[in-house]
């Protein structure tokens, strides 16, 4: 599965900027002049999307940190990436996971 780039590495939109306030990522999309706010877990996934970690590696961290089964975390992260894709927050060329 490619999500935002090759090799299963989810990539943020290159022009998106973000800061974290009280555990929630405030993401700014200048191309569309939009703001997006991610909940706590979503903010953690966004932070883990460093352009190096694969989808599976991110899910592993989430599973460990939130004490859930890996398969559950993987499904949730995939779903979340779908939300990011729908909100134009992923790099161009992303496929829906």
């Amino acid at each position, binding site marked *: 599965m490619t999500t935002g780039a090759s090799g299963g590495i989810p990539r943020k939109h290159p*022009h998106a*900027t*973000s*800061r*974290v*306030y*009280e555990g*929630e990522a*405030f993401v*700014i999309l*200048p*191309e569309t*002049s*939009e*703001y*997006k*706010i*991610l*909940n*706590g*877990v*979503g903010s953690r*996934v966004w932070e883990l999307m460093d352009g190096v970690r694969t989808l599976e590696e991110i899910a592993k961290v989430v599973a460990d940190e939130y004490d859930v089964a890996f398969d559950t975390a993987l499904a*949730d*992260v995939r*779903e*979340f990436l779908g*939300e*990011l894709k729908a*909100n134009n*927050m992923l790099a161009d060329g992303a496929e829906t996971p």
Partner: protein
Amino acid sequence: MRGNSEGRPVGDGRNAYADLLARSWNNALPMTALWEITYACNHKCAFCYNCPERGRRELGTQQIIAGIEKLAHLGCAFLVLSGGEPLTRPDFFEIARAGKKAGFALRIYTNGYLVDDLVARKIRDLMPFEVEISFHGANAATMDKLTGVPGSYDRVIEGIKSLRRLGVKVNMKVPITRWNQEELRGIKALADSMGCHPEFDPVITPRDDGDTSPLALQADRDFLARLWSPEFADITHEETPTPRDDTRVQANCGTGRSTIAIDPYGNIYPCVQWRRSAGNITEVPDLRELWTKSPVLNEVRRIAMEIPKTTLKTCESGEFCSFCPGVAEVQTGDPFNIYPQVKANSEIRKKAYDQFLQIQSRAPVAVS
């Protein structure tokens, strides 16, 4: 991924942002850093509030870039590059690129005079969140009179068009003065024709040294009464002024809470309007420590929390008061003092609201 207030991992739109802004005011979350990177300007606007310090050297490129990195570490999301006229700095784009590299969403406040096709392309390549261009009249006579620069109207329009051809979002910021008050619809039509969003602002402030001469340019009281009526709902975006709602936001404003301002010499202020220096960005090693421990910032925060409970309660039209403690301090010496123009404006707004309610109460009720 569940669990934010909307039950979804990605919240968007006005509600989520408004909620964050309210929290930033209540909890002192630094969202916006506004840096006046120079006081040099190629306009001579009649109401300008800047007060350059004669003979004092403005910060150099590397000093500003180092300061930008400190602001990023503080956690601000927006970096506003302002002035004076920021594009007069030869190193403007080097500074702006440093802001992008530090992860900021850029806002550029300019008068647009220096924007040609080349400059517009360089601005486009920065991918700014917005470019805000000051605009002052629906025709050259009015605008050039206010800027003090013949030809400014034509030059600025060409600059806006250069940006718009490249798809750059441009907001036209229009201070309402007695010189342009009858031209607002003409300005709006011009903005609409260029695909820009106009923002009209009736607030004129004293100069930062307390000189109140700019206030002579304020819009007429009679005009302000019309402005806040349904007649100008297309300009103000509201049928009537609405009273303050202190249930959600307790602070009077975001001074020292959601904003921080820097002047061309590196002085740090709680906002662009309140010139109480909290230090110099070249001398402060860690802005996070300043943000939490500065006695200046903590004092202005305390004042901002007190104002809705004191100043605004003692004023009959306090619910409609866009009170600025910074203006109050520079104009009267006391940040709690109601100053004449805010009192007048709040009275007009309250009267408009009362009239609106009377009309509504007499309106026939639709029967289904």
